[in-house]
C-alpha cells in the first residue's frame, strides 16, 4: 500500500480466511454426518425410544400394490433394503401424481409404538434420471433410484 498510515489489509484478509475456513469446515463435517433431512427405515428402527417422540421424515420406495387410497388419505408400505414400514397417511391433500408403485417417497409424521408410521404429509422424491418410456411398455419402475442409504 502506498499510504503507510492506512489500515493494513492483512487483518481483513486473516478475518476473511478464518470465516471461509470455518464455513468450509462446517460444511465438510456436516457432510459426513448430516442425516437431518430424512432418515431411512433402517435408521428409524435403530433409533430406539427417540423414534417415537420426534417428528420425522422417512424415505423409502413405495411397495408395489400396497397403496390403498381412501379419499385424500392412503395407506401403503415403504421398502428400503428389505426393511418394510407401514405408513398411514392422513392429510388434507391427496398425494402427488408421482406417488405410485416403486416411486421414492418421503413420509412426514410420527412413528407410533405399534410400528405404524402416521404421516401427515407425503412428498415424492424424483430420480435424477430422464428417459423416454420404453416401447416395450415396461413401466418405468426401475428408474426409481435406490436410496443413498450409506450417506
Amino acid at each position: 500500500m502506498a499510504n503507510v498510515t492506512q489500515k493494513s489489509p492483512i487483518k481483513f484478509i486473516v478475518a476473511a480466511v478464518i470465516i471461509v475456513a470455518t464455513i468450509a469446515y462446517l460444511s465438510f463435517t456436516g457432510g459426513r454426518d448430516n442425516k437431518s433431512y430424512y432418515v431411512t427405515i433402517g435408521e428409524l428402527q435403530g433409533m430406539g425410544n427417540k423414534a417415537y417422540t420426534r417428528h420425522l421424515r422417512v424415505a423409502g420406495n413405495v411397495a408395489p400394490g400396497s397403496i390403498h387410497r381412501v379419499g385424500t388419505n392412503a395407506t401403503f408400505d415403504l421398502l428400503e433394503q428389505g426393511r418394510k414400514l407401514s405408513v398411514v397417511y392422513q392429510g388434507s391433500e391427496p398425494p402427488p401424481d408421482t406417488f405410485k408403485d416403486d416411486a421414492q417417497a418421503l413420509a412426514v409424521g410420527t412413528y407410533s409404538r405399534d410400528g405404524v408410521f402416521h404421516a401427515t404429509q407425503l412428498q415424492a422424491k424424483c430420480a435424477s434420471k430422464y428417459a423416454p418410456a420404453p416401447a416395450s411398455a415396461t413401466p418405468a419402475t426401475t428408474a426409481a433410484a435406490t436410496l443413498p442409504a450409506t450417506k
Partner: protein
Amino acid sequence: MEQRTPTLRNVAWLWFGISIAVLAFGFRQAIFLVPTDAAQGNVGRIFYYHVPIAMLSLIFPYINFVASLFYLYWRRREPLKALTADALALATAEVTVVYSSICLLTGMLWARAVWGIWWTWDPRLTSMLLLWLLYVSYLMLRQFSSAGQTHTLAAVLSVFAAVDVPIVYMSIRWWRTQHPAPVFGGGPDSGVDPSMLPAFYWNLAGWTVWGICIVVFRFALERRRQFAEQEAALQAIEASLEIPQ
C-alpha cells in the same frame, strides 16, 4: 473513452438475434421434439429450463467474484481499471439475481407438480435461497448505501457471497436432500437419455448466449453512466476553478 462504433453495434445486434434464435430453437426442441420423460410426463420438460438456468446462476456469481477481486486490487493502484471491474461486477450480480430468481420459481412450480410441495427446507433449496438473498442484498447495498465506500463494501460482500456458490453446488452431493442427486456426473441411476440431450444443450446454449448478451448490455450501460458521472465531476471542478478568476 470508449466510443461505440457501428461495427460493435452490429455485433451486439447480431449476438442478440442469435440468442433469440437459439432460444426459439431450444424451445421447439424442449416442448415439441424430444420424447416425454417416462417418470414425470410432460411436467418433466421444465427440466430443460430449470437446469441450464440453475447452472448459469452458479456461474455468473463467479464472474462477479473475480471482478470484485480485481476491483479491490485495482481500486488504489489503477482506479480507472477498477471502475471497469466494478461495472462488470454489477452487471453479473444483476444477471445472477435474474437467473437465480427464475431458478427458484421454476423449481417451485416443478416441486409442486412432482413432489407435491411448493417448498421444503432441504440443504439445496435453502442454500439456493441464501444465494438469491445474498445477491439481492448486494444490489440493495449498491443502491442504497450513501457512503463513498459503496463499491468497496459491495466488492467485499461479493467475496463472502461467493462462498455460498460451491455450497449450493455440493449440497446435493454432501447431504441428503429432497432435491434429486446430480443428473450429470451422478450415480449409476442418473443421467439423461441421449434422445433428450439436444433439448438440454440447445437450451443451455440459448440461456448462456442470452445471459452474456444482457451482461454485456448492462456493462455497457454502467460504463456510460460512469463516464457521464466523471464528465459531470470534471465539469464541476472546471466550473469551480473558473469562479475566482
